[in-house]
C-alpha cells in the first residue's frame, strides 16, 4: 500500500462493519470499522493503547478526530462514537455497513497504563467523552490485564438516560464483582435507579479513596473544570489525576499548529495529561 515514503497524512483504507445509533435522540452514532488490509490491522494493534485517537476521513468531506472506543482484544475492528455536529460528523452519520472510510492513527499518547500498574483506578466520564474511558475499561476487563490493577471504580454521568452510551454493556457491569459502577443523570427520570446530579457532586458522594489510586477524568470542559478540584479536595495529588484534552485538529501529528497548549501539542504530546502537567501549561483551552 504505502510504497513511497510513508505519508502521515495518508489514511489507512477501512470499511464500515457496523453502524448504529448510540443515543435515543440519534445525536450519537457508533461506527465499527475493519481493515481492508490485514497488514494494516497488525500494524495498528501492535502500537494501539487505550486513550489514543484517530482521524476519520470521509473522502470529499474531510477529517474528524475521534477517540477510539474499543479494546484490542475485542477483535480486528476499531470502534468510534461520533456526535453529529459538523459537516464531517454529519457525513459519518450517513455511513452504512460496507461503505469505505479512511482512518489515520492511532495518534497521541494514550493512558499511561504501565505507570498505573498496581494502583486502584477511578474512571470518571461525562457525556460522549466517555468513549476512550470505555476503551480503557474494556481493556482492563480482559483477564490478562485485570490482575495488574487494584480496585476499579467507574463514574459515568450523562444529561439524560437516553444519552448514556454503550447501555447494554454498562448495565452488565453492575453485575460484575471486580468493579464498582456509578451512573448519573442530570435531572430525575422515572424508573432511574442510579444517581441524579452533576458528575462533580457524584464524585464527592462516592468519595473514592486517594490512597494508591489514580483518577482519570474525561468529559465536557465544564464537568472537568469542577471535577478536578473535587478530586484534589478528596486528597488526590495533581500527579495522580489525569484527563484527556481536545482541540480543533487537522494534521494529528504535530505539524499544522492549531492544537497547541503552550509548547505542547494535544495531538502529539497528549491527549492525555496529568493535572500536574496541565498546571505547568498556560490556560489556553
Amino acid at each position: 500500500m504505502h510504497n513511497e515514503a510513508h505519508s502521515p497524512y495518508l489514511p489507512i483504507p477501512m470499511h464500515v462493519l457496523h453502524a448504529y445509533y448510540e443515543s435515543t435522540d440519534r445525536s450519537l452514532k457508533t461506527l465499527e470499522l475493519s481493515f481492508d488490509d490485514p497488514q494494516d490491522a497488525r500494524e495498528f494493534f501492535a502500537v494501539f493503547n487505550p486513550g489514543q485517537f484517530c482521524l476519520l476521513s470521509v473522502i470529499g468531506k474531510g477529517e474528524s478526530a475521534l477517540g477510539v472506543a474499543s479494546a484490542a482484544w475485542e477483535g480486528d475492528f476499531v470502534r468510534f462514537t461520533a456526535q453529529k455536529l459538523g459537516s464531517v460528523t454529519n457525513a459519518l452519520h450517513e455511513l452504512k455497513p460496507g461503505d469505505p472510510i479512511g482512518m489515520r492513527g492511532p495518534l497521541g499518547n494514550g493512558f499511561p497504563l504501565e505507570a498505573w500498574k498496581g494502583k486502584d483506578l477511578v474512571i470518571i466520564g461525562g457525556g460522549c467523552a466517555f468513549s476512550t474511558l470505555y476503551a480503557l475499561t474494556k481493556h482492563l476487563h480482559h483477564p490478562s490485564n485485570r490482575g495488574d490493577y487494584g480496585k476499579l471504580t467507574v463514574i459515568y454521568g450523562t444529561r439524560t438516560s437516553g444519552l448514556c452510551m454503550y447501555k447494554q454493556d454498562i448495565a452488565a457491569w453492575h453485575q460484575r464483582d471486580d468493579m464498582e459502577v456509578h451512573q448519573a443523570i442530570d435531572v430525575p427520570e422515572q424508573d432511574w435507579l442510579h444517581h441524579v446530579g452533576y458528575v462533580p457532586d457524584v464524585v464527592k458522594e462516592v468519595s473514592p479513596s486517594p490512597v494508591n489510586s489514580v483518577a482519570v477524568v474525561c468529559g465536557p470542559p465544564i464537568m472537568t473544570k469542577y471535577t478536578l478540584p473535587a478530586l484534589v479536595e478528596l486528597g488526590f495529588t495533581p500527579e495522580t489525576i489525569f484527563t484527556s484534552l481536545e482541540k480543533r485538529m487537522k494534521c494529528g501529528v504535530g505539524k499544522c499548529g492549531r492544537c497547541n497548549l503552550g509548547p505542547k501539542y494535544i495531538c502529539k504530546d497528549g491527549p492525555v495529561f496529568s493535572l500536574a502537567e496541565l498546571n505547568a501549561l498556560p490556560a489556553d483551552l
Partner: protein
Amino acid sequence: MNLILKKDQLNHLLNAWRQDYEVYAPQSLQNFTHFLPLQDGFELAFDKAHNTRIPPKALFLPTSEALMKFTRFGGYEQIPSETTPRVIFGIRPCDAHAMTMLDTVFEQERYTDPHWQARREATVVVGLGCHEPCQTGFCTTVGSGPFNHAGLDAILTDLGETLLVETFSDKGDRLFAQLEMASVDQSVRAIEVQQAAKEKMPIAFETEGLKEKLDQNFASPYWEEASRSCLGCGVCTFLCPTCFCFDIVDEAQRGERVRNWDTCMFRTYSLEASGHNPRPSRVERTRQRLSHKYTYWVDQINQIGCTGCGRCVRYCPVGLDIRAMLRKAHQLPSEVAHA
C-alpha cells in the same frame, strides 16, 4: 572552503547550473521581489530589497499543495513528493536559519513530512549575506545574523568586484567546484565585511528574561493593549519565515485533499465544532503569535522562533511593530500569576 567568484561571471555560473538544476533566484515581479525559476535572459534583483516579500519557505511548503487525490468509489492515493533538483540562490541568512527551525517540525523522528523532506533533500541553498542592514530587520537581536550559516550550503560575501563563496556542505562544494580558491587576503576582507555588517545591526530589544516575562504575563491586560489596532489580516504570519501552520481541506470538485497555509490570527483557526473557541478574539490570537515565537519555540528547541527578518513589521497594514511590542512586554511586572 573559501572560493572566489567574479561578479561578471555570476550569470554564466547560474546558467551552467541550469543544465542540472532548476535555479531559483530573487527577481522582480509586480513591484515585489520573488524567488522565481531562472529563464533565458533573466535579470536578478539583488539590490531591490533585502528580502523577498514571500519567504522562501514557500518553495518547501507551498501556499497550497495537494496531499492526495481521490479515486473512484471512495478510494484515494498519495501524490508523490517532488524531487526535482533545485538551487535556491540568494537566500538571506534569516530565511535559511528559519528553515532549520521548520526542519524540527517537519522532520520529527516519529512523523516525517515526506513532501517537505523530499524538497529539502533535493535543494541546494546558497545564501547571500547582508553587508548593509535592512530597515526593519533585527537578526542579531534574536540569535541570527547577517552572515549566519544555519541552513546554508554556501554563503556569498560581497567584496565589491568579487563575491567570496564559503561552502559548508558537500552539496555546496559540488555546486562551486569550478571556482578558484580565495586568497588569504580575500578571506580576511570577507571577515571584516561580515564583522562590520554585524556591528551595524542595532539591538532592537532585550531578550534576556523576555520568555519569563511572557510566561508570567499570560493573563495580563497587556495583550488587550498590544492587540488593539490589529486587524486580524494574518499577513504577519503568512509572510513569517518560521510560521508553518496549515489547514487540510477536501476540494471535492478537484478530487483532491489539499493543505493550505493557515494562520493563528484567524478566528476559524481554533474554532471547534461545538462552537467553543479557545482564542475567540484578537487578544488571545496576538498572545498566541508572540508567545509561540518567544516562549513556546524556546521550550521546544531552546531557540527563539524568530530570525528577525522584519517582514511582519514591514508589511503590517496598521504598523504594528513586534519590536515595540516586545520592548513593552519586557517591562511588564514579574509576579502576575495565571488567571
